[in-house]
């Protein structure tokens, strides 16, 4: 592992730990309002100032990071799980199942990622409470993001199916379940890990874009999407550049992911 990659992982770990310790680092909380100091500049009390409602921007950034950095991997895990099941079923079992699952994956991939997200998100209620909005946003990402992993896992499963060790296992009378769990899935671990690490930054960016468009996580819960949506007030950003902190943090995190695994998925 290169030094740069190791540093990126360490930085990500530090950021995540800071986000987890948000309650201790920023006791004001993400929703606490200091009505006597709205839009305050950075100070000892408010490290990144306050927003127009008097909420501590540093606390909101930490809590927002906690949500994005916890749920994006969870959504990626869900997407990979569904993709792995579909991909293994299609690639290993083949036949009609392969044809049907491949066509379904083609269908999902034929619609640009954001259009797909927007369409399915709009079919669900828009005025929901913040916790429901989190569940909807990240479940959607996980449930709709299965097609790319499925396609890659399918190709890997087809390739592995004909390998010597698989033939040997079959010749020894291994049951299909044992072949899958003991031989096929462990051999696919690198493929699945790569897909997992590639999906996380894509899901973070998708949540950010949805939040920027007002279809992400609902206030008062913070997320990188709705924190960045605050940048749309041009005059406020121009007079108080510290409001760019969420963007800087997002760039830093994305750069870390970028160093850990190259973002090479052109279909999203």
């Amino acid at each position, binding site marked *: 592992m290169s030094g740069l990659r190791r540093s990126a992982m360490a930085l990500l770990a530090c950021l995540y730990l800071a986000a987890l310790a948000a309650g201790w680092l920023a006791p004001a909380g993400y929703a606490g309002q200091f009505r006597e100091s709205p839009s305050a500049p950075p100070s000892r009390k408010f490290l990144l100032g306050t927003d127009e409602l008097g909420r501590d921007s540093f606390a909101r950034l930490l809590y927002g990071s906690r949500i994005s950095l916890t749920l994006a991997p969870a959504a990626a895990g869900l997407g990979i799980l569904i993709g792995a099941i579909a991909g293994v079923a299609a690639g290993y079992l083949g036949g009609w199942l392969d044809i049907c699952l491949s066509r379904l994956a083609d269908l999902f991939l034929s619609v640009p990622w954001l259009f797909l997200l927007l*369409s399915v998100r*709009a079919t669900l209620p828009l005025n929901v409470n913040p916790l429901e909005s989190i569940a909807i946003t990240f479940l959607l990402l996980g449930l709709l993001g299965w097609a790319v992993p499925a396609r890659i896992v399918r190709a890997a499963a087809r390739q592995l199916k004909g390998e010597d060790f698989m033939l040997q296992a079959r010749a020894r009378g291994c049951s299909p379940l044992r072949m899958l769990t003991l031989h096929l899935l462990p051999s696919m671990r690198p493929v699945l890990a790569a897909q997992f690490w590639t999906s996380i*930054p894509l899901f973070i960016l998708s949540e950010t874009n949805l939040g920027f468009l007002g279809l992400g996580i609902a206030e008062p819960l913070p997320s990188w999407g709705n924190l960045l949506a605050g940048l749309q007030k041009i005059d406020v950003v121009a007079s108080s550049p510290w409001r760019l902190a969420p963007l800087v943090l997002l760039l830093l995190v994305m750069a870390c992911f970028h160093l850990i695994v190259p973002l090479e998925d052109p279909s999203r």
Partner: protein
Amino acid sequence: MRTRLLHRLATVGMTVILGGFLAATLVRYAPGFGVDERELDTRFSRETIRRLREEAGARGQGIGSYYVHYMARVLTGDLGVSAGFRRPVAALIAERFPETVRSAGAGLACGWTAGMLLALAGVTVARREFDFLTGAAVALLLCIPSAVMAFAFVFAGTLETGAAATIVISLVILPRVFRYARSILGRVATAPHVFMALARGNGRFRLVWVHVLRPAWPSLLALLGVSVSMALGAAIPVEVICDSPGLGQLAWQAALKRDLPLLIDITLLISVVTGVSGFAAELAQTRTAKGDSL
């Protein structure tokens, strides 16, 4: 080859049929389907509200018959009336589609040209410093959400909305095209036939054009098909932030108004465009491969 192309064409057809079914299912089972909020408007008479309920009742049929009616309407060009805009969907799409074609098309062309030129320069120059600098610039572009990028251009305020949308879409396309093209070209550039051509004293331009670019062309054409999908996907946040009246902005407005039939029609249209562009890329790929084999 012909079988493969026919298969691809059949896939596009299947996408429309299956996509239409999924779209119809989404609309039919979306919470609030068949309920018209105008029923709460006290200005409407009882008779009007009864009519509205009748209309809703007509729409509240089973998924099978709903799908058949939906597809029959779509095939005759009747996409229905938008509840949010109170206008025919076909007219709305016809009005907005050219703007998206213009911004996404121009963005795609600019992004592709810049990405390819950078990748070719990387292969030609073949220096670590150049690769590091371009790699860092491209990585930075990949890290920024397209909405934020669009916002930065609006913030700068030096460009008119259409031009800003085009530039942002090209900046979304450029890094992805560059990375793939650089990887493909880099792989071809280290192939034995290139060393042989170099040893034979071929000029640098001829080397890149004939021995590197031509063999890589089929893979690059496949990337072109995927780029259309990327450009259309980027059109949503870009058109919204840049206030460019295209399909992306219309889809966003439809989502906010929960105008599902309109949104689904737009998504189906976009999936057809993506499918057809993939088919065209594959056709071009086949022709290129045929030309090379001759």
